[in-house]
């Protein structure tokens, strides 16, 4: 009888013991979570090459002391050097006592010299990190990444925010910049074409008295804001990314000027409301892209031909000479303007194709097209494709009605 009673209570006892063990373990530790006060929230990272390895400049978000109502972002920059990027990130912890957290890192800037070597030799750290957002933007900058990250923006609280703004949706639709995330770049790099592109960022000094970080989105004292940020050295800077760095096998091989950047975006069919200049009666005019249909296809005849087709619908944006009101009221383009616009765009595309071919960058992913269409043809032509391919450029320009 006693045994039966005992057996009857065994299940509940066992369940209670298991519950007690788990709950005791559960509530007697900190779950390895990191206190936010001890966390270094990395907003952006700049990477440069050194003789012994890498230099990492991390822009860390810090609490804003004074002007809390503005909702802006303050930052400090920490520079570390190591044999690997991981060393550099670990040194942030050693130097500051804060645990570096990459989950909010939205921008990685690569210094020009560092970009000339295989960038995945250091980007692999970010690809391996489970907590690094692969939607993080990548960019190459003129000179050292440290100088760009540490510079003071004339427009935003932090340089990283100002640079990220260059890749807004509106900017991308203008066709003046390209944008690549860590994921996109990795896909290109590990794809059969092994070619990609990144925006090339330059900074220009803003003359004294113009701009400068105001210490918050809502305004506030300029000088106080500059102290608040704790970052930024020298005069306020403005940034531009109209040029594009080309990569082959992960190495920087060429930089596209702004016209070729626009051409690349046009052929990608990404441009809406972007503008470019042509001529009419020997005078400059600006044209707005209303509709952009671009396509690249590979034709394999005796020699491979890359067909670049572009179908643009344009309207007149402005003239460089005075015009009667009837002309201003009309968006239509003259035949001459249409023809000139076609010539201009064709020239941009020809230059773009030439740059890609000369640099060995398969920007139009021709190898990938060949690979996807036929394994046999790919095996036969993959090594000679870029050298032998010729462009066939078809540009169709029409005026908005």
């Amino acid at each position: 009888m006693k045994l039966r009673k005992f057996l009857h209570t065994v299940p509940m006892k066992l369940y209670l013991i298991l519950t007690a063990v788990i709950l005791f373990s559960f509530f007697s530790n900190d779950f390895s979570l990191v206190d936010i006060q001890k966390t270094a929230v990395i907003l952006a990272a700049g990477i440069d090459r050194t003789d012994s390895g890498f230099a990492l400049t991390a822009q860390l978000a810090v609490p804003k002391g004074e002007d809390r109502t503005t909702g802006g972002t303050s930052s400090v920059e920490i520079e570390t050097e190591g044999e690997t990027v991981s060393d550099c990130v670990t040194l942030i912890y050693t130097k500051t006592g804060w645990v570096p957290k990459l989950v909010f890192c939205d921008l990685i800037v690569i210094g020009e010299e560092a970009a000339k070597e295989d960038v995945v030799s250091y980007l692999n750290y970010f690809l391996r990190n489970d907590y690094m957002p692969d939607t993080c933007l990548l960019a190459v900058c003129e000179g050292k990444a440290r100088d760009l990250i540490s510079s003071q923006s004339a427009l935003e609280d932090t340089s990283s925010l100002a640079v990220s703004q260059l890749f807004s949706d509106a900017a991308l639709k203008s066709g003046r910049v390209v944008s690549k995330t860590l994921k996109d770049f990795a896909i290109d790099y590990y794809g059969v074409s092994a070619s990609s592109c990144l925006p090339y960022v330059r900074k220009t000094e803003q003359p004294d008295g113009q701009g400068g970080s105001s210490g918050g989105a809502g305004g506030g004292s300029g000088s106080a804001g500059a102290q608040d940020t704790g970052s930024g050295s020298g005069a306020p800077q403005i940034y531009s990314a109209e040029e594009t760095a080309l990569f082959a096998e992960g190495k920087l091989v060429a930089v596209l000027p702004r016209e070729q950047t626009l051409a690349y975006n046009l052929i990608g069919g990404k441009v809406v409301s972007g503008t470019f200049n042509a001529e009419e009666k020997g005078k400059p005019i600006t044209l707005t892209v209303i509709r952009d249909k671009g396509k690249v296809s590979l034709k394999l005849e005796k020699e491979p031909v890359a067909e670049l087709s572009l179908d643009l619908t344009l309207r007149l944006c402005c003239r460089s000479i005075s015009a009667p009101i009837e002309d201003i009221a009309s968006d239509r383009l003259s035949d001459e303007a249409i023809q000139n616009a076609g010539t201009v765009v064709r020239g941009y595309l020809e230059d773009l194709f030439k740059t890609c071919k000369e640099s060995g960058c398969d920007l139009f992913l021709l190898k990938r097209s060949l690979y996807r269409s036929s394994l046999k043809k790919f095996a036969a032509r993959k090594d000679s494709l870029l050298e032998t391919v010729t462009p066939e450029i078809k540009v169709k320009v029409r005026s908005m009605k």
Partner: protein
Amino acid sequence: MKISTRQLLFFLACVAPVGKLILLPARLADAAQNDLLFPLLAHYLLQAGAVFLALLLARREESFTELLAHAFGRTGAAILSVLFALFLLFASLLPLLEQKLFVQNVFYDTLPAFIVYAPFFLFTAYVASKPLSSYGRVWDILAPLFLVGLAGILILSVGSSDFGAVAPAGAAGGSGFLKGVSSAFSWFFDAALLLPLLGKFRYTKGLAWKGALCYLAGGAAVIFFTAVFYGIFQGTAVNQLFGFTVTSKYFPGIAMLGRVDYLFIFLLALVMAFYNSMALQGSVECMLQAFGRKKYLPTVLSVIVSAGMLTAVTLLDRGFSDVLLGVGKWAFWIFPLFSVVVPALMLPLGRKRREAP
């Protein structure tokens, strides 16, 4: 209380697929690159056949152990049932480790302590102590949750996918296909999950065909998701370990709205919690059939099984990839043995009864 045909079909079409949506796509991408859909299809066809056989066994209206007893006697059937229970425990280990990794990585922004996953075993200890037939109502609830969850994730993901990435077919060759097939066996034992359910549902006309077709329908959803997954990550897919949690974040609206896709991820995570506890419950059921259904035994066994799995998962906390590789290389044959060969060998056992209308 019996499981109805509808509930069983819900399990096959809407619950069974959830276990294949986390690590499996990356694992297949590693083994078969852009040909990853072919090994997946092969597994689904094989497993659908096994599901067909397992459901045919239900015509006998006898439990798993009762069927075995026809050929091996009571004692032999009990031994085989315990062996099968051990297989189910072994089969549940990898999904539990996978789920633990998923919880630690997806729901936290730093790697938390193992203990955050431990309360799951309180859940399994409770669930596994209940009769297996109670799953019928659970599947009724989980099926729409799965459909909403997967549809939401696919809608948010499909626009970011380049389906051309799965071309050209055959790039990985025969060796890639075989590697893909062998590395994915540990995800396919759904027919084995049906065996402890024998005797808990009635065989209705055409159930075997319907079940196999529903399983294939769930498989079609998994194959489509895997194609979307590969189209998004292409050559880097092998590095994306958390399948359905990472595909929807590239939807343009996510940047503005935040990770609203987590609503769908949570739905699938809920379905997965029940799916992963099912093997443990099946194991308890097999042992109950072997030892006799005494009053206290379900709870005792469920607590022992859950505590055992908690210990195993704790010990293997950092060894998941070793276990995965080891199973893929040396022990992959165990899964088809128990989920395909066992139902096939059991087919002649028992006596045939009339089908219910």
